[in-house]
């Protein structure tokens, strides 16, 4: 307790000293104005980020022990060891940073014990992380606390009602570059909800699908016939459900919300009959009909911690199962995982909100889901569902440089995200933010010193020097 209090006080001292906070009486830094003006007129410099000192888990199954990853202007350009050259590191070492034609940020994770690099996680859906509403390009709150907490949880991309957006925080201290408004929204609507709750809604969905399928058959026949007779008119779409047409054409996913095995079997049958891949959220009893869902090519969005006993009137198996994700996966169903609450919840019971994606995955793993499928359930699978799998979800050359550095296995409940990178910008460092700096501090820092001391006995100016070990690191943190 005493230790905790000391830390708390220190956190306050650190806040007072932190460079982003007020420094009364400090003369403002006046740069050479002409030089600054010249700088502005030039093309923006290329921006490099190199990540090293940790094991890189690409999300494709490969692990590069103590590998290196290089990003240029937000895109990954190389992953490997020393088979590629890093500007400013492998050459240009002697050239002062401001004389180089590029900017280089080195994210050296060697100070993170058991450091691992993973792709940034993709939340299938969330609320409140972007701070805005409607068109996020024009409404994002780039200083939002919940966005910061989302980044602290390792989330870099999130699905929204009708779009997919990045957690693009305003990079602290980097005001020279304009905020990238156009980089916020990276995908449009990819899922269309199909009502499947009542007998009437099931019938209606089936009729619409049948109508759309019939239209597609005439359309395909027309495509053949029109080559012979160019005057032939395209068949009319009137009366055809445009959503279902898009579903059957593979332009959009049909999204069903269903939990009971009867409903799930019904979805599987209709999907097989009309030939599309259903996305099922909930899917609590999926494990009972996993074979059917697998045959239908279903994709499931699960909350593995859901607990519900089965309907006792049924003789068949039912209810929730911790093995749900594992069984669905083994039957060929792609599984995405999302916690029960989609927002950031700082009150009530901890661990069930969007900040705890890996904890939720941990439950699925406890039920037998393989580790790689567990990682995929919060990276590649939701990325595919949101239509942004070509940009995010794995660490591959050409994809966006959205990654996290953790201090251990991402899916272990004790693991913390230490750094988060979005589009090649370091946007979260655990030691620099108030929220988790004090829990198992990475190394000595003002927010979380390794050796507690009484701030009253320490002259504030010499804060960085009075720590025995790692004092240099402490200074670095304070830059």
């Amino acid at each position: 307790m005493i230790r905790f209090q000391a830390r708390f006080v220190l956190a306050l001292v650190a806040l007072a000293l932190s460079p982003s906070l007020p420094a009364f009486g400090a003369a403002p830094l006046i740069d050479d104005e002409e030089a600054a003006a010249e700088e502005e007129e030039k093309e923006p410099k290329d921006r490099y980020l190199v990540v090293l000192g940790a094991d890189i888990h690409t999300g494709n199954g490969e692990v590069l022990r103590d590998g290196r990853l290089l990003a240029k202007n937000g895109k990954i350009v190389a992953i490997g060891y020393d088979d590629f050259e890093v500007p400013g590191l492998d050459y240009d070492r002697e050239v002062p940073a401001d004389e180089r034609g590029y900017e280089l940020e080195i994210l050296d994770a060697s100070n993170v014990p058991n450091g691992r690099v993973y792709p940034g996680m993709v939340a299938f859906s969330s609320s409140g992380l972007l701070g805005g509403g409607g068109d996020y390009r024009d409404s994002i709150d780039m200083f939002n606390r919940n966005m910061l907490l989302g980044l602290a949880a390792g989330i870099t991309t999130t699905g929204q009602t009708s779009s997919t957006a990045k957690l693009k925080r305003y990079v602290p201290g980097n005001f020279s570059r304009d905020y990238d408004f156009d980089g916020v929204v990276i995908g449009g609507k990819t899922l269309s909800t199909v009502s499947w709750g009542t007998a009437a809604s099931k019938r209606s969905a089936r009729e619409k699908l049948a109508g759309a399928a019939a239209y597609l058959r005439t359309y395909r026949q027309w495509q053949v016939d029109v080559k012979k007779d160019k005057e032939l008119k395209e068949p009319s779409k009137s009366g055809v459900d445009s959503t279902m047409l898009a579903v059957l054409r593979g332009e959009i996913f049909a999204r069903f919300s269903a939990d009971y095995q009867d409903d799930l079997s019904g979805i599987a049958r209709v999907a097989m009959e009309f030939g599309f891949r259903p996305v099922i959220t909930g899917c609590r009893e999926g494990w009972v009909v996993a074979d059917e869902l697998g045959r239908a090519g279903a994709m499931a969005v699960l909350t593995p911690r859901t607990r519900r006993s089965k309907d006792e009137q049924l003789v068949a198996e039912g209810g929730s199962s911790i093995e749900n994700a594992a069984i669905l996966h083994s039957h060929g169903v792609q599984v995405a995982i999302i916690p029960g609450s989609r927002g950031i919840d700082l009150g009530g019971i901890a661990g069930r909100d969007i900040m705890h994606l890996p904890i939720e995955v941990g439950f699925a793993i406890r039920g037998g889901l393989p580790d790689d499928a567990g990682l995929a359930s919060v990276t590649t699978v939701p990325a595919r569902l949101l239509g942004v799998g070509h940009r995010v979800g794995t660490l591959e050359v050409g994809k966006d440089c959205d990654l996290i550095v953790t201090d251990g296995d991402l899916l272990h409940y004790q693991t913390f995200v230490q750094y988060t990178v979005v589009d090649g910008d370091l946007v979260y460092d655990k030691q620099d933010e108030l929220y988790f700096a004090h829990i198992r501090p990475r190394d000595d820092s003002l927010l979380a010193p390794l050796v507690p001391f009484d701030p009253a006995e320490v002259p504030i100016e010499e804060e960085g020097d009075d720590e025995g070990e790692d004092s240099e690191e402490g200074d670095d943190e304070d830059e």
Partner: protein
Amino acid sequence: MKNRTTQLLLFAGLMALQPNAQAGDLFAVQVERAETISHGTIEHAVILIEGDKIVMIGEDLAIDSGIPVIDKDPGWVATPALVNPYSRMGLSSRGPSGLNPQRKVSGELYTGAISKDVLEAGVGTVGLYPAGTGIPGRAVAVRTWGSGDARILRDDVYMKAMMRSDSTSKKTWRKGFEEADEHKEKETKNREKWEKDREKLEKDAKDDDKEKADKAKEELKKPYTPLVPKPAAAAFASLREGELTALIGISKSSDYVHFLDALGEEDVQWSLHVPISRESDLFHVKEQEALKDRHVIMTPAFSYHPGTLRRRSMAAEFFSAGAKVTFVPTSDSTGAHESWLRDVGQLVRDGLDSQAALRAMTLNGAEVLRVDEHVGSLDEGKHANILFFDGDPFAATTNLEAVLMEGDFITGEVDR
């Protein structure tokens, strides 16, 4: 200073020579200290006032024997009267939404007046902003006394624009410039057409047909009449030309960043208005280059670093970062005006520079209202709007001894 004294003596002499000059119009106040705001502190200052104007201010000026002198040295501290550039005092809070930059608050002045308590609290000038969302209109700078249009110091002082992090705000702002562009284009086309017509008329004027020629000559005499622009187009054109300034109302840092995005390359004069909330995140943008020397209107309130109980003073931080911090009372109530000095005093005790704080309540507000040639500082030629304190204006024990507005004592028992 000697030069000034000579001037004064000369001036006083001239006054004596003019039998018509009303001796009652001219008087001097001697105080222990005068905070001029525009040119620092003057110890043992003498302020010479004629009619409603300050005619001279300086240290230990010699006063001609015929002029009444109110001698309050030692004792009094003089400051300019306070200026509140952002208020709806006495007016309805209802207003339209959308793009209405042509609306004028000066048109609704007849609906209400400002409480005398505000005047007696030392507030001499108020900027009344248009109510509503989006771009609801133009503010007017008024005196805190009198009624109707006689109160107006200057009209069209700024165009208010609400900026929130949403598409609507950004679209409203951009639409104004688009309309200005459209008008410009139409105007150019119209002018070209007129010039073409002229060429044709000039040809016709030389025509052999006399009647046709005369008609053409008559037509040629007519001057070009420009098209009447839409109100929004006119307002945004004057914004571009610097005739109108904008006051951007934001509530958090992201609003500001979205405003810059909506503003784009447009070169207009703008100030910021931001109420300080409990967990204001405004510190994120304080180092922005665009905020250097920019007026940032805020309430004198502390906030806490988000998620903590660590107190932060946005006013002090923005002042250190180089912005022209401008204060407004915490609300439009009389009480908020009466406690305005005390509220700012809290920030001063916390480390805000007291000169900057005083400036933030006077001259900076006058600059926002573009009436700084009349009010906001103690300078020759400006309105004699002066407050007299019996000590440091921000000290809790100090009293406001007298309020002088345009040469008349509103409060304070003063012997001449």
